[in-house]
């Protein structure tokens, strides 16, 4: 029973960051239909920015996280403008190849700048965990959970409640009509990619200090992000959020009660099952965006 509660708690916390990654990629892959293999590199970028500002430059830890997210958004905007804006309407394969290139360049740049030696970011939280009964959780993980939940709610509000969100939904439903209604299509693409990248950077900025920071940390993250988006249904924000939690639950309980060697396989097994039974994703309703 104690073990069950501990697994549940672990899954909840891990799930919140998976959800963040998944929602970020939903903007880019689910809505824009760009197969963004560099998504994990924005995650890595966020982690390294926290390292740079909080450890190397000595900025306050919380401020460093905010700076990392803002820089992630800016980098996303630059990548979109530099690499993708010229290929608007191009084949999905073309943009995929461009993003694979970006992935390789970004990962090697990180290796060049910070070397392959893992970096650790100290957090200003008590080292001793919060223990209730026989269940323990680190304060740092609790902080990540709260921050991730706030960001998920924020992203959802942005899409549903703001003019920008409305314009995004309109653009991806029917680009031509949206353009005729006076929406600046290029700006919308730029903003969407930047926001998606910003969320990935946020996930990295939050998880980097909990884990360790290495140039290859994004490789597994990007695969999981794709899995979550497919699980939740392409372009479905709530689906991606729930998909993140479902993946974490399956991994945690698979590792805890079946076999830890197949921990990562559990998640992918689930995706194969979902694709066979309900190919539109677990939470997809009718074809709808947003």
């Amino acid at each position, binding site marked *: 029973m104690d073990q069950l509660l501990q697994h549940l708690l672990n899954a909840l916390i891990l799930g919140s960051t998976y959800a963040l990654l998944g929602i970020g990629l939903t903007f880019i892959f689910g809505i824009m239909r760009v197969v963004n293999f560099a998504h994990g590199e924005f995650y890595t970028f966020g982690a390294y920015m926290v390292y740079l500002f909080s450890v190397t430059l000595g900025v306050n830890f919380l401020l460093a996280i905010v700076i990392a997210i803002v820089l992630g958004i800016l980098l996303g905007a630059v990548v979109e403008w530099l690499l993708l804006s010229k290929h608007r309407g191009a084949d999905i394969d073309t943009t995929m190849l461009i993003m694979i290139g970006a992935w390789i360049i970004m990962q090697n740049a990180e290796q060049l700048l910070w070397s392959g030696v893992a970096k*650790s970011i100290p957090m200003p939280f008590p*080292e001793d965990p919060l*223990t209730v009964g026989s269940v*323990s959780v*680190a304060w740092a993980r609790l902080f990540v959970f709260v921050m991730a939940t706030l960001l998920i709610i924020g992203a959802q509000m942005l899409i549903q409640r703001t003019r920008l969100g409305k314009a995004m939904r309109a653009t991806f439903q029917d680009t031509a009509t949206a353009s005729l209604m006076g929406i600046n299509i290029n700006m919308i693409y730029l903003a969407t990619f930047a926001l998606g990248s910003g969320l990935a950077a946020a996930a990295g900025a939050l998880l980097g200090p909990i*884990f*360790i920071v*290495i140039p290859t940390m994004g490789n597994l993250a990007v695969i999981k992000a794709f899995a979550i988006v497919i699980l939740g249904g392409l372009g479905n924000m709530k689906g991606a959020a729930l998909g993140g939690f479902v993946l974490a639950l399956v991994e945690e309980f698979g590792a805890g009660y079946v076999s830890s060697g197949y921990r990562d396989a559990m998640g992918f097994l689930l995706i194969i099952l979902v694709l066979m039974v309900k190919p539109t994703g677990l939470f997809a309703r009718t074809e709808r965006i947003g």
Partner: protein
Amino acid sequence: MSRLTKMALMASVLACSVAGAAADTIKIGINQPLTGSVAASGNFITDGAKLAAEAINEKGGVLGKQLELVIEDNKSNPSEAAAAAEKLISRDEVSAMMGAWGSSFTLAVMPKLQEYGIPMVVETASSSKVTSAGNPWVFRIAPTSEMEAKAFGQLVPEFAMKKVDFLVVNNDWGLGAAGEFGKMLKEQGVEVGMTETMDPAAQDVSAQLAKIKASDADTLFVTTGYEQLSLVFKQLKALDVNRRVITTGGSQFPDRLAEQLGSAADNSYHILFFAPWFPDAAANPEVAHGYIDQWNQKGYDKSGLSDGFRGYDAITAIAAAVEAAGSADPEAIRDALWKVDVKGVNGNIKFQKVGVEGSESGQSSPNVYVVEIKDGKLALP
């Protein structure tokens, strides 16, 4: 053909002719991961190899010639490791090689050694497959998991363990360590509980640790590289698992663990093949001091010392073999490697015949050292 490709071609032709001109050196190929997931360790080992070559060259080289290291990056990838070996042998025409960091890269390179008849000193690799494959061109200075477990076995009574669990990386190295240490402990009357595994790239192991938390064992053995190890310690603390941890494998960087993790790494013991913080405890203190002084003079990262020695010892062994062979001919060097008996940083390097009869591989018997982290500092237990 574009202009760029033409220029690249010309440049490579030029580079070839320059390399060909320097014939007064003895070329040794270095096949290490300089980029990719295990790049940190590969770079340290390469640095160690350079120091050994430098020390030898300052004393006049070998057979009156200077040693020249030809360094190739295997990108932490087995197929790249095989390609790097091919390039070192057929284009650079090296006389011997050192490589290739880890069992999977080394196993990928081994067929090339046999094909071209070039000896290789293996500085890192724990799988028994490396020396049991019947490849007579392989000479290993790194210990197998079995040797490591056996050497540690003499210290087991001091730890008074009753029951142990294992948490290991899910590959040949981790599973091999769990198997060999489990066997050794059972023979000593220690109960062996569960063996949990983790993907080499996994960052979150809290599911495995929640399971371990519920076990009644008093000691946890962990086998993985430094990066994952620091995650394991952090997450052990977060889940409030309090028990003795013993790490194996030789690439744990306990100094960095102590510095970065503070009290989270307390009450842990680390089985190493060289403990640079205690050079006087080494089998050959004078060699250890010399190596450490050289490393510090260069201003290399101090935490790399416990990896770099492997490159140092491998080059020392190769140089001794070239000296004994009296020529830079690969086959003569191979035959001479059997006669090598030199003092290395880890201990004395001397190869015994192991594996398939008639085409034995060489295996040296390295020493094992245990270091403890106590109150955030390193100590000898």
